[in-house]
């Protein structure tokens, strides 16, 4: 172990001879020039942007910020949905020596205020009128804030405010600085691997969000090791739809693009994802479990509408696909008879499903950021597309373990990646040590000391490692339920099975220090509505839909079905539906639309108590 430590300490990582992300980005931009790197859909048209465009725009942003007085280490925040300007501003502020922080566009004004103050943001990029209004509302109480730059000026023609300027004006300001030779290049040369590069706020389940400090070196390490887990190349197409404020989105759509020079396609907006995906047909696709669950339930519902023959054919095809997957997962040769059957169902069924889902050209699917049901991963393998589960955290700059071709186990998160050590503490907490582990949390030395001890990152996840080195994540440590009977239960395992139902979007299992388990369920509006209409269940709105006996019975059946797969103490005895349609602006949901266990437990305490 000491040897490994020495290696990690002594070796300076480089990619193509560059030791910082800034230098790597600039060399890519100057070398690749006219090669396309970003496609963005605008009013239904895919516009292309080359490396030169990205380089030039970033440079103008950087020089503009410099002219506004940015000094090395100053924080810039970006509040926007994913778009090209986000990427321009990100690299502009990083290369000029700033630190770039992402704000979720769904954050409420008080959260914006907290983020600006906690990070001491000086420059704030706001996507549009809506994001601008949030920051204007709180700016009296954000003393460090100096300038607000607005990407989209629509509806702001009359804006006359000394603190605000448009993105165009910033670029213009930067253009005026072009004559001053080499400022940009000089700042890029000054960057060191130890420099703080981005702040990524992680939603603290206890206390306010904490800013994870990711350095140039952290990210460069991640990019050099990611090759093993996500081997993208220049010919690959990605679909960019996850928020860039999240470490996964940032890592994949920005830094992995810089490393691999693949092309990222930015969706028009969050409603057009399915359509955009069909058009782009990505070759490399990373998404969170929520996304894969949604695709699966879309297909389940469609096949319920199909003819009897169609349903039978679907079942048959998936079955053949699963049998074949037994071989392909292990990298073994598929028996001839099975291969022939597969060729047939592939042609008539599976191929069509893949086209529908827009994954027909995918050579690599991956999932992380939340637990996923193993059955779902198998389903994608059965469809004929390999899916690999990864595991990691913001605090280790993205991912730490991964399944890879011919070396995977469904249900595990794979093995530790190159240059990363994973171990278990005495209480089975997963520990990570790598050059990707962050310096700490911004302005939070105590929290940092709790989380990172002697270079080991304490992930807060309970896990186990099998004899072959495959790592299994059991649950969040603090989420483990100990029932009144003293039995330890891992709720996420049960929740994953529940979420596999097309009618259940998310569920929270409750039962800590209680006699038995219960759960709160969030139904899938689309699929349950469809069910209600098919079965002539009268309802008016979401609330009344949740309250109908038929829907209660439906969810009950789904839960009973899941119960059969668990031991008696792990079965759900009662449940309640969350009868309000939640949207990402509600505190109950994370930006990736997962229910927050703690908030749900507090907010629905009455509903929970009813069940005991």
């Amino acid at each position, binding site marked *: 172990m000491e040897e490994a430590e020495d290696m990690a300490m002594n070796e300076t990582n480089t990619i193509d001879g560059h030791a910082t992300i800034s230098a790597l980005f600039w060399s890519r931009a100057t070398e690749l020039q006219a090669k396309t790197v970003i496609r963005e859909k605008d009013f239904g048209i895919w516009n292309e942007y080359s490396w030169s465009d990205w380089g030039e725009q970033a440079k103008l942003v950087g020089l503009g910020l410099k002219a506004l007085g940015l000094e090395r280490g100053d924080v810039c925040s970006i509040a926007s949905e994913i778009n090209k300007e986000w990427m321009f501003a990100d690299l502009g502020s990083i290369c000029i020596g700033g630190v770039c922080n992402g704000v979720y566009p769904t954050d409420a004004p008080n959260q914006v205020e907290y983020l600006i103050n906690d990070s001491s943001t000086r420059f704030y990029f706001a996507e549009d009128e809506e994001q601008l209004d949030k920051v204007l509302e709180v700016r009296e109480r954000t003393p460090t804030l100096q300038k607000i730059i607005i990407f989209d000026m629509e509806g702001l023609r009359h804006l006359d405010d000394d603190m605000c300027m448009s993105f165009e004006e910033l670029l213009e300001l930067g253009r005026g600085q072009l004559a001053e030779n080499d400022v940009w290049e000089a700042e890029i040369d000054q960057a060191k691997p130890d420099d703080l590069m981005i702040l990524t706020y992680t939603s603290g389940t206890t206390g306010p969000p904490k800013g994870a400090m990711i350095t140039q070196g952290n990210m460069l390490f991640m990019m050099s090791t990611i090759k093993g887990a996500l081997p993208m190349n220049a010919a690959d197409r990605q679909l960019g739809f996850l928020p860039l404020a999240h470490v996964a989105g940032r890592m994949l759509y920005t830094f992995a693009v810089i490393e691999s020079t693949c092309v990222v396609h930015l969706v028009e907006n969050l409603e057009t994802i399915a359509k955009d995906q069909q058009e782009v047909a990505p070759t490399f696709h990373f998404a969170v479990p929520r996304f894969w669950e949604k695709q699966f339930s879309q297909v389940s519902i469609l096949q319920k509408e199909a003819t009897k023959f169609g349903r039978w054919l679907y079942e048959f095809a998936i079955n053949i696909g699963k049998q074949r997957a037994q071989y392909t997962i292990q990298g073994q040769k598929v028996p001839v008879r099975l291969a022939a059957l597969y060729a047939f169902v592939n042609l008539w069924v599976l191929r069509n499903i893949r086209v529908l889902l827009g994954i027909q050209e995918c050579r690599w699917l991956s999932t992380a950021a939340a637990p996923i049901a193993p059955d779902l991963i198998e389903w994608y393998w059965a469809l004929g597309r390999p899916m690999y589960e990864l595991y990691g955290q913001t605090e280790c700059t993205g991912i730490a373990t991964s399944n890879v071709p011919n070396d995977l186990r469904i249900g595990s998160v794979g093995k530790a990646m190159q240059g990363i050590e994973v171990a278990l503490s005495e209480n089975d907490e997963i520990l990570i040590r790598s050059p990707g582990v962050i310096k700490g949390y911004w302005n939070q030395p105590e929290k940092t000391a709790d989380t990172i001890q002697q270079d080991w990152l304490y992930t807060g996840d309970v896990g186990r490692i099998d004899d072959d080195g495959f790592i299994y994540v059991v649950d969040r440590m603090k989420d483990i339920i100990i029932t009144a009977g003293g039995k330890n239960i891992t709720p996420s395992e049960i929740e994953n099975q529940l979420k596999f139902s097309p009618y259940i979007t998310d569920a929270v299992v409750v039962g800590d220090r209680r006699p038995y388990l219960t759960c709160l369920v969030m139904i899938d509006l689309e699929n349950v509505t469809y069910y209600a209409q098919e079965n002539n269940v009268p*309802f008016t*709105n979401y609330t009344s839909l949740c309250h109908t006996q038929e829907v209660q019975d439906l969810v009950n059946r789904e839960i009973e079905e899941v119960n059969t797969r668990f031991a008696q103490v792990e079965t759900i005895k009662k449940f309640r539906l969350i009868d309000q349609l939640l949207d990402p602006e509600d505190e109950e949901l994370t930006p990736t639309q997962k229910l927050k266990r703690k908030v749900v437990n507090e907010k629905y305490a009455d509903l929970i108590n009813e069940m005991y």
Partner: protein
Amino acid sequence: MALLEVRNVESYYGPILAIRGVSIDVEEGTIVTLLGANGAGKTTVLKTISGALEPQKGTVAFDGDNVTALEPDNIASLGVGHVPEGREVFPFLSTEDNLKMGAFTRAAGDLEGDLDTVYGYFPQLREHRKLAAGFLSGGQQQMLAIGRALMLKPKVMLLDEPSLGLSPRLVQEIGDIVVRLNEEQNVTVLLVEQNAKMALGIASYGYIMESGRVVMEDTTERLAESTDVQEFYLGMKSGGARGRRRWKKRKTWR
């Protein structure tokens, strides 16, 4: 049991699904309003109730009987008076003949007395009783359309945007008359409106429709307090920090 019960109704115009699974209750003696933007499916709901459209799915029950997809004249003779959007008076018939047309489906009764009642509510119609209806003003035509439905002695009246194209004063007047009809003639009213202020003022219960679905239902007091209703239907919104807010909040309907 409510006087009018609409359950899970789905109606199409050709291949286009106009309302998808709408359920509405109208209690006897009340005024219930149905609000929504253009194209939300409000008119379709009324047409489905009165039999002008046949629903693909779902049922309509009136006074305890299933009346789904009966012929419009049958439904009218049961006591459902439909006042269509845009008045649709017979332009070449005189005012009085228009009113008599309203009584066409019921067994002859005290026609003269009923005419007097209508003229009592709408004195202007009496003045123009011999005039062809096409020559009446918009407001008078609206009165005529309501009066024509009244001649049916309906138990429930389906009013489709009676305030359409009327001056604020006339809107007020029509609103008052609807309330009086409800109280004095014991007519139950299902009122479709764009003018949310007037509708929430006179109705006791309300439904809000969006793209063919009910998204919210509640008493009108509570609807009027909902921030979404205030912003999207009553035009009350704060200007934000700049005083010129243009962007719209996400609707949550709670």
